[in-house]
């Protein structure tokens, strides 16, 4: 007997056989047990396939269960945007602009302040180190996060809640418990007879404190003179600052010229053009300062860490001294109790009368060599930067695969993440400025703010790189090595393009906006998701 083949049997079963052949087969299977058995077996196979495919063996992931995003009508987004815009406007007119005005009154207006910070003085020297610090900070944060999440004991939402709580706590902790007196006048004078029993916040063209402040003194002014007694810290943003009195706490100051001619009980931190510690001046703790010119004639009981273009030391240092800059002159009356080091361009001049506990350790930076090797250094920096970024990418793919995929997915939407990134940048610049100031006054929230935002900007390149790699090599979600290969290619292209003058910088700006937006969207998506158990 001639049988029908398996193809014909399958088509017959599925009603796809031409009518004539279907009739023939119907007649045939009545007589042929073999073909009948085959049809039965194929039918059973179809049932088994359908059952296996349709069986509900796996729960829906929580992020798909949520219909919140579908449920939010567009007017809510419009309202939210309106509220956001109003908030931003209020923040600017009520907080940022007055601050800028105050800073401007204090002599930090516009380019003057920027040029002072960036281009004049020794501050420029520190940028290389700052980039290193940023990269290390990014790695450390990713590492800590990785350790925390690898345990997988905490649910993602709990982990995020913990981090957010910690940041909120950091913001709340420094809020002063005591009452604060605020004075804003053209010229603020606290006479010698007056005692202020709280913190004092002052602003004005000039501020003079001859009396006593039993708390912190926070000043925004063109000219600050303290001849009285401050039992807490002095935090000052001033054109000029002269401290002739007594401060039991710390002095933190951003000032074009800062002069300490009195006694500071604890530490002193200063950023400005000139820092002068007169012969009568004393710092009970350490001095950390960045300035173009520094005269250190007074006594510092502990360490000195400074970046000064030109340093003149005639006073005493109880602890160790570490200086960077161009010139260093150590006079005959100088004393250094601990190890001393100088890293700079010129050979330091040390008076024979100076008393140094140990010989000055000198590291000279040769100007010519720096110029010759600056190109090589640029390339080496580029390679190291690429390596660090790639390493971060590998860590992301292996340690946070879910977050990586979600964020990469968001990156692919292009327009939305760039928009979110641009908004975040506007908010972020404000946070960075605020964070920078807060770091300066030693508030943990500032540290948290800067350390939280800077790595996001840095990590942005990984996702844009991965997206670029996917576009070139085609998408890959597995295996991990294929994903890493795509990140490596994308990052390589970005880093190569980064060398192009002007366009490279514009590209990095776009990458920062795009990637930051994608990361923020990724955080948002992940915060709405609960890990569901795998049952397949």
């Amino acid at each position, binding site marked *: *007997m*001639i*049988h*029908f*083949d*398996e*193809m*014909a049997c*399958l*088509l017959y079963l*599925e009603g*796809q056989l031409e009518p004539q052949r279907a009739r023939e087969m119907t007649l045939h299977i009545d007589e042929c047990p*073999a073909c009948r*058995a*085959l049809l*039965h*077996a*194929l039918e*059973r*196979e*179809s049932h*088994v*396939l*359908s*059952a*296996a*495919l*349709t*069986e*509900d*063996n*796996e729960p*829906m*992931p929580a*992020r*798909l*269960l949520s*219909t919140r995003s*579908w*449920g*939010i*009508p*567009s007017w809510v987004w419009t309202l939210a945007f309106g509220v956001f815009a109003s908030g931003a406007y209020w923040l600017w007119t009520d907080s940022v602009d007055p601050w800028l005005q105050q800073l401007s009154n204090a002599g930090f207006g516009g380019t003057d302040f920027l040029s002072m910070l960036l281009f004049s003085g020794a501050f420029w020297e520190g940028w290389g180190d700052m980039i290193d610090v940023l990269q290390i900070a990014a790695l450390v944060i990713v590492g800590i996060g990785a350790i925390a999440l690898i345990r997988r004991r905490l649910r993602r939402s709990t982990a995020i809640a913990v981090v957010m709580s910690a940041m909120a706590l950091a913001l709340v902790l420094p809020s002063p418990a005591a009452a604060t007196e605020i004075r804003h006048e053209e010229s603020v004078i606290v006479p010698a007879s007056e005692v202020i029993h709280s913190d004092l916040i002052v602003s004005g063209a000039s501020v003079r404190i001859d009396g006593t402040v039993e708390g912190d003194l926070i000043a925004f002014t063109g000219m600050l003179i303290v001849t009285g007694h401050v039992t807490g810290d002095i935090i000052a943003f001033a054109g000029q600052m002269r401290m002739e009195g007594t401060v039991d706490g710390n002095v933190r100051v951003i000032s074009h010229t800062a002069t300490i001619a009195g006694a500071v009980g604890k530490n002193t931190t200063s950023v400005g053009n000139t820092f002068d510690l007169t012969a009568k001046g004393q710092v009970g703790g350490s001095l950390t300062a960045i300035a173009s010119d520094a005269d250190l004639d007074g006594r510092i009981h502990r360490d000195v860490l400074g970046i000064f273009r030109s340093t003149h030391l005639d006073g005493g240092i109880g602890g160790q001294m570490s200086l960077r800059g161009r010139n260093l002159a150590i006079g005959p009356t100088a004393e250094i109790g601990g190890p001393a080091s100088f890293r700079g361009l010129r050979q330091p001049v040390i008076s024979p009368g100076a008393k140094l506990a140990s010989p000055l350790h000198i590291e000279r930076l040769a100007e010519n060599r720096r110029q010759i090797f600056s190109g090589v250094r640029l390339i080496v920096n580029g390679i190291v930067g690429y390596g660090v970024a790639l390493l971060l990418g590998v860590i992301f793919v292996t340690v946070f*695969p*879910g977050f990586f*995929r979600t964020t990469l*997915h968001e990156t692919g939407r292009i327009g939305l993440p760039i928009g979110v990134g641009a908004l975040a940048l506007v908010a972020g610049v404000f946070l960075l400025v605020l964070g920078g100031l807060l770091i300066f006054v030693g508030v943990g929230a500032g540290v948290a703010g800067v350390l939280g935002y800077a790595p996001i900007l840095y990590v942005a390149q990984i996702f844009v790189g991965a997206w670029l790699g996917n576009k070139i090599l*085609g*998408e*890959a*979600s*597995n295996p991990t090595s294929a994903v890493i290969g795509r990140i490596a290619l994308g990052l390589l292209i970005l880093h190569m393009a980064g060398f192009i003058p002007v366009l490279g910088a514009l590209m990095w700006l776009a990458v920062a906006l795009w990637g930051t937006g994608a990361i923020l969207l990724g955080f948002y998506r992940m915060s709405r998701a609960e890990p569901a158990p*795998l049952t*397949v």
Partner: protein
Amino acid sequence: MNPADQANEKEQIARARAGDAEAWGELYRQYAPAIFRFCRRTMPTREDAEDSTMDIFIKVRQKLSQYDSTRSFSAWLYTVAANHCWDLLRRRKVRQDLETGEIENMPLEHPDPGQLEQLIERRTSQEVRRALDQLPARARMALVLRYYADMSYDDIATTLGVRRAFVGVVLLRARHQLRDILGERGAASPPWRAAGGAT
């Protein structure tokens, strides 16, 4: 679906089309599990399936105005889902099947029905799913379109970009590959495959 449910669904679709977020939410809740399962069966990883499900519903919402309400909504949804997943798989340049459309490549031997039934009965649904995961993308997609989404041969042909007459070949070959995986791998002649005649 009874006529009342159908009418209710039509109304929901009409409301969702008009921008009613609640109606859209209802539609989503109703169909998301099935579409997620569809994606889970066709895409290589769970994460891919999650992402695809989201993307499919975003597309569906955008294309809702193009939906022809005389057709079944679920069939239209599966068509969108199938196109999305198949596009994604193709863009990833997954290893393409070696099929060239030549029917001569098909094995024509008559399988031993008894052995075949035994092979099928021995395997659990989970084993069948695992075997499906190992199939080439096109074979897996064809089986899912036919035996999960219940798509017609015409729709399968359109989605996979093959001639309609070739759909049966793709399906049968996919079954053979599945049997190979489920059966004794590497055997010169799998037990379910016995010599037989052909028309």
